[in-house]
């Protein structure tokens, strides 16, 4: 076998560090062998997916509880969204049994030393790697943001493999951890005006579908905000399979520039918009914050909702990380949003919460949210700007 282990790594595999660490090391080394890695490398940060009880089920929870018997994280580890706001779940219509099971999931992670902020944007709340740092993240949008926007290095981990990296502090050196696999493969020139998060989501849909797993090099984007980039990352990873892209003048990774043979026009974006614009009667659910809203986005939503009332027949969720919600409470945004009848929901997101059957139609600024709302919840969808979403909610 080609995979060489250090003394400490061998000891982990032989159970010297306990049962959970042994199991974790079995996962890491087997993946290393499958992908032909020659060694393991230390990781400094982990993001774990598979947190919502809705996805995990009882068996997933049982596995976590087993790992929590003697497993302890060795590096900074945060969690993906759960199926509910861990504190205010009741008023969002989550039932008691689900809430109890969701709490058990979070408790199992806490026992292992995981920081139990449940968010798909760990980089906004203190799990922020730097350029060139090796990390092991699950959550496809965060993986894409870490690799592309920050220039950290991670494969797209699954829930158990990310947990395994947390408990061993290692990952196998393959894929995105090797510079030669991070080179741009296809060039795209954007000849369209992108002015908001929904536009960047649509661009991600167009490029994602064209590029599949080939690494894109994108030109023609003069500037982009952090919020717009997180929207692009979410949708390019949802509609394609990419864990990394390059944008000329914006992203930090060095790569030879491939020949530009694809042009993305305004018409391409408009066509993409049409594919995310179902025939619907009445919109009953509006969601902002996929990926989780930044404090800047929440401030903007609060401004739009000031002195307005959400219509009786509609529900609006603005989803975010708990530390961001706390900041929104401090700044008074929470009170403005909630007194308008909207919900500022932390820890959860509309893709992993048990919402099936509760609503029929979703309006959102997120192309990724559209994909999961259709696939998992059978909602009809409409993609719009944040401003249009709020107008719909209060109309």
């Amino acid at each position, binding site marked *: 076998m080609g995979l060489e282990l250090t003394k400490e790594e061998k000891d982990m595999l032989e159970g010297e560090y306990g049962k959970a660490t042994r*199991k974790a090391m*079995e*996962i890491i080394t*087997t*993946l290393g*062998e*499958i992908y032909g890695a020659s060694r393991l490398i230390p990781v400094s940060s982990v993001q774990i*997916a*598979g947190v919502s009880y809705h*996805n*995990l*089920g*009882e*068996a*997933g929870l*049982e*596995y976590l509880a087993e790992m929590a018997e003697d497993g302890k994280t060795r590096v900074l580890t945060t969690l993906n969204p759960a199926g509910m706001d861990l504190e205010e779940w009741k008023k969002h219509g989550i039932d008691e049994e689900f809430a109890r099971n969701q709490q058990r999931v979070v408790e199992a992670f806490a026992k292992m030393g995981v920081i139990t902020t449940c968010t798909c944007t760990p980089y906004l709340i203190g799990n922020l790697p730097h350029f060139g740092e090796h990390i092991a993240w*699950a959550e496809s949008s965060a993986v894409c943001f870490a690799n592309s926007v920050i220039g950290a290095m991670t494969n797209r*981990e*699954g*829930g*158990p*493999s990310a947990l395994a990296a947390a408990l061993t502090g290692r990952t196998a050196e393959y894929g995105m951890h090797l510079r030669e696999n991070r080179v741009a493969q296809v060039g795209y020139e954007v000849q369209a005006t992108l002015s908001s998060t929904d536009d960047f989501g649509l661009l991600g849909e167009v490029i994602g579908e064209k590029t599949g797993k080939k690494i894109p090099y994108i030109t023609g984007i003069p500037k982009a905000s952090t919020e717009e980039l997180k929207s692009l990352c979410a949708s390019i990873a949802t509609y394609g399979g990419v864990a990394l892209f390059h944008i000329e003048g914006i992203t930090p990774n060095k790569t030879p520039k491939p020949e530009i043979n694809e042009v993305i026009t305004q018409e391409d974006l408009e066509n993409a918009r049409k594919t995310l614009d179902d025939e619907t009667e009445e919109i009953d659910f509006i969601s902002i914050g996929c990926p989780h809203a930044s404090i800047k986005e929440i401030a903007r939503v609060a401004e739009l909702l000031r002195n307005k009332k959400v219509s009786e027949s509609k529900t609006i969720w603005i989803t975010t990380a708990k530390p961001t919600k706390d900041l929104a409470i401090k700044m008074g945004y929470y009170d403005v949003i909630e007194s308008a009848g909207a919900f500022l929901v932390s820890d959860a997101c509309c893709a992993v919460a048990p919402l099936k059957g509760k609503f029929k139609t979703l309006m959102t600024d997120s192309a990724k949210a559209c994909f999961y709302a259709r696939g998992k919840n059978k909602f009809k969808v409409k993609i719009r700007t944040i401003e249009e979403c709020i107008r719909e909610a209060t109309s």
Partner: protein
Amino acid sequence: MIELKGRRIFSGKVEGEALVTTDDISFYGGCDPETGEIVEKGHQLEGRSISGKILVFPTGKGSTVGSYVLYALKKAGKGPLAIVNKSTDPVVAVGCIISEIPAVDQIDIEKIKTGQKIKIDADNGVVIIE
């Protein structure tokens, strides 16, 4: 007797009846975690249970949550006895490790037929057709 040589994914020795498909399997959404029945529409094994069989298929596909489906099946006593792949994907590999299901890959699976009695010696990466 035919001996096929491959690679260990997760160790263990078992013998049992082969259930073979040339379709890839997505455990999340494609296999009922309580009964072990393949439920993916149009799949060669649709309606058949993988429970207690040595499941032989090319490779896995689909969501990483699939690893937990294998774990759920094993806990419910409905898991496959072992898994034999042409090329094991990470979702199935992780699923076999966490649920301790013997698994071997890099096997010429076309040589195995449904209903045959086969032996797996995963530690040595060997599949024996009786």
